[in-house]
C-alpha cells in the first residue's frame, strides 16, 4: 500500500492546447461541428475570390480606366479621384485651408482626449468658441486675404465631417436646455419643450431636409433666401437637439433623488445644483447615448444627397456617373462603406475607453 500523493497527471491531450480549444469551441457537438464546417466552407468559397478581386488582381495606380486591365477591383477610380472625394469641388490650390482646419481641430480633440494634458479648460474653450471662427474664415474665406469659397463648392468627406461635427456640437447645448425644460416645474416651459421635442422626433430627418431645401425658399423672397448648406445645418441641429434632449433626460432621470435633495439641502439654487451636482454626474451616464446619437447622425448626414449637397456618398455617386468611369460602382460603394466604418468604429471605441476611465459603475462589458 502506498500512500504517497501521486503527481498530477497532465490533462488529456485532446482537452488542452489548440485541439482542446477547437474541441470546446468549434466541435462540441454534432450540430456545432456541422455549423463549423458549413461556415468554413462558406468562408473558403467567398473570402478567397474576394481577396483575389480586391487585392491580388486589383489595379491601384493610373489615371484612366485603361489602367484597369487585370480583371480585379479598379481602385484607380478611387485613388485617381481621392482629392475630389475628400474635398469636393473645393479649388485645388486652396486645399491647404481645409487641411489646416482639420489639423487644428484634430489637435484640439487630441489634446482633450489624451490623459494628463494641462490646460484642458482653456483648450476646450478655444475649441468651442475660437476654433469655429477660425474654421469659418479658413473654409469660407472672405477675410485675412483669403478668397471666398462658396459653400456649393464644399463636398466630400470634409462636408460630411462639417455636418456631423457642427450638428452634434450645436445640438448638445440645445439638448441640455430642452431636457431641463422638459423636467421643469414651470408649465409653459415644460409644454413648449415637450412640443418641440415630440414634433422634431416625430418627423424623419429626410423630411426636415427636404422642407429646408424645397419649401423654405418658396416662402421667403429671393433676397433673404440663405445658403443651402446653412439651411440643411439648421434642420439637422433642430432635429438632433430633440434627440439629444431625450438622451440628456435619460441621464438626468438616472440620478438618484437624494442627489437633488442634497443639493437643495446645501442651499444651492437651481442652476448651481444642476451645474455642480446633477449634470456632471448625469453627463457621465450619458456618454454611450451621446456617442450613439453622434454615430447615427454621422451616418444620417449622407441623406443630404437628396437636397443636392455632395457629401462623401453623393460625390462618389456623382463620380460614378462620369462617362469616363462608368461601371465601377462596387469599388465606389466599398470605399464609402470603409470610410464610414472607420469613423464610426473609432468613435465607438473611444466612447468605451471613456466609460472605463470615468468609471461610470456599470461597465459590465
Amino acid at each position: 500500500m502506498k500512500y504517497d500523493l501521486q503527481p498530477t497527471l497532465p490533462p488529456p491531450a485532446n482537452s488542452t492546447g489548440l485541439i482542446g480549444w477547437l474541441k470546446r469551441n468549434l466541435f462540441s457537438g454534432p450540430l456545432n461541428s456541422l455549423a463549423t464546417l458549413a461556415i468554413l466552407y462558406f468562408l473558403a468559397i467567398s473570402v478567397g475570390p474576394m481577396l483575389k478581386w480586391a487585392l491580388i488582381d486589383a489595379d491601384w495606380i493610373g489615371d484612366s480606366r485603361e489602367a484597369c486591365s487585370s480583371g480585379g477591383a479598379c481602385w484607380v477610380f478611387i485613388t485617381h479621384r481621392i482629392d475630389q472625394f475628400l474635398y469636393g469641388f473645393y479649388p485645388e490650390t486652396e486645399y491647404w485651408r481645409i487641411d489646416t482646419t482639420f489639423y487644428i481641430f484634430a489637435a484640439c480633440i487630441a489634446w482633450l482626449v489624451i490623459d494628463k494634458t494641462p490646460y484642458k479648460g482653456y483648450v476646450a474653450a478655444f475649441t468651442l468658441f475660437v476654433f469655429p471662427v477660425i474654421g469659418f474664415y479658413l473654409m469660407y474665406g472672405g477675410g485675412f486675404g483669403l478668397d471666398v469659397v462658396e459653400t456649393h463648392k464644399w463636398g466630400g468627406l470634409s462636408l460630411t465631417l462639417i455636418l456631423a461635427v457642427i450638428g452634434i456640437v450645436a445640438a448638445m447645448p440645445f439638448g441640455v436646455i430642452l431636457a431641463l425644460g422638459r423636467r421643469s416645474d414651470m408649465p409653459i416651459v415644460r409644454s413648449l419643450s415637450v412640443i418641440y421635442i415630440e414634433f422634431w422626433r416625430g418627423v424623419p430627418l429626410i423630411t426636415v431636409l427636404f422642407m429646408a431645401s424645397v419649401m423654405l425658399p418658396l416662402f421667403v423672397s429671393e433676397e433673404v433666401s440663405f445658403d443651402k448648406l446653412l439651411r440643411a445645418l439648421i434642420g439637422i441641429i433642430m432635429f438632433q437637439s430633440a434627440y439629444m434632449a431625450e438622451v440628456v433626460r435619460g441621464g438626468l432621470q438616472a440620478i438618484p433623488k437624494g442627489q437633488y435633495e442634497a443639493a437643495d439641502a446645501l442651499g444651492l439654487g437651481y442652476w448651481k445644483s444642476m451645474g455642480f451636482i446633477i449634470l456632471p454626474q448625469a453627463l457621465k451616464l450619458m456618454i454611450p447615448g451621446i456617442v450613439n446619437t453622434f454615430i447615427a447622425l454621422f451616418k444620417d448626414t449622407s441623406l443630404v444627397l437628396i437636397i443636392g449637397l455632395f457629401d462623401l456618398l453623393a460625390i462618389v455617386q456623382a463620380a460614378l456617373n462620369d462617362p469616363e468611369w462608368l461601371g465601377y460602382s462596387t469599388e465606389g460603394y466599398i470605399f464609402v462603406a470603409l470610410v464610414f466604418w472607420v469613423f464610426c468604429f473609432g468613435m465607438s471605441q473611444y466612447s468605451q475607453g471613456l466609460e472605463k476611465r470615468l468609471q461610470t459603475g456599470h461597465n459590465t462589458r
Partner: protein
Amino acid sequence: MIKRSLITATILSAATSGHVLADVTLDAVKARGVLQCGVSTGLPGFSNPDDKGNWKGLDVDMCRAVAAAVLGDATKVKYIPLTAKERFTALQSGEIDLLPRNTTWTQTRDTQLGLNFAGVNYYDGQGFMVSKDLGVKSAKELDGAAVCIQAGTTTELNLADYFRLNGMSYAPVVFDTSDQTVKGFEAGRCDVLTSDQSQLYALRIKLEKPDSAMVLPEVISKEPLGPVVRQGDDQWFNIVKWTHNALLNAEELGVTSANVDEMKKSKNPNVRRLIGLEGPKGKGLGLNDDWAYQVIKQIGNYGESFDRNVGAGSPLKVNRGINALWTDGGLQYAPPMR
C-alpha cells in the same frame, strides 16, 4: 383634402409672388456677374463632375453658352446640383436662373408650373437594348421577351403601352436602381433592357462587355429635353432660346470654335449675321453684338458639344439619330437669324 389644397394654394401664391421679380433676370445675372445654373446631381453625358471637379455635359454646355452670351465668359457659371424633386422649386424661387437638367417638355410643366421651355437640346425617347447574341434587329421581334425595367418610372407605363399596341406579350423584371437593372441584364434575367435612349448608352458601358449589347433603333416615347426658365421674363426666355438657336445655326453654317475667327472674313451673309457683324446683332436681346461669337468661340456649335459630351468623341458614343440637323434628316432646326 382641404389641407392639401391650402398647401397647394400657398405654394402657388408663393410661386407667383416670385413673378414680381420677372423681367429682371438679365439684370440680376449681369449685376451678379455669375449665371446660376441648375444641373443634375450626375447624369452621364448631360451633367456630371469630371476628375478635376469641373462640370461636363450637354446640359452643362447650355449653361456655359448662356453665360458666354450674357457675360462674355463661359466659366462664370455657378452650378447648383438639383435632384429631380427640387428642380422646379429652385427655378420658381429664383435660386437659379436657368434649368437645363434633362427635363422633359410636357404640357403640364409648360402650362401649370410657371415655367417656359426654351427649346429642345436633346430629343430623347425610350428605347431597348438587347444582347447581340439574341439576333434581334427590331423591337417588333420582341414578342414574349423578358424585359428589365426600373421600378416607378414612366418607362414602365410606356413599355406596357407599346407592347399592347403591337399585340405582343412580355414578362417584366423590375429592379430598383439602374445599377441593379444592368446587373440583372448581365446575369441574363431578361432578354431586353429598356430605358431612355440617352441612358441606354451609359448603361451599356456599365456592362462587363459593352460590345456584346446593342441598342435597337425603335424609340417608343417622346422625351424632348430642354432648358427651362421662369415664365413671365420674356427677355430672358428669348436669350436662352436664341443662344440655343445660335448653337444650331452655327453647326448648319459650318462655324466651329476653331474656325469662328476666320469666319469673320466670310462673305456669307448668314454667317456674318450669326456672329454679329451685321443683321439684328445683340440689340433685341439686350446683349453685346458679339454674343453669338462668344458662344461659338467658347463652347463650339451644337454638333461639337454633342460629339464631345455624348456622341462619337465621348465614351457614350450615342448616334446623332433624330438629334441630327434637319439638313441631315434629324429634328434639330433653328429659325434663321436675321
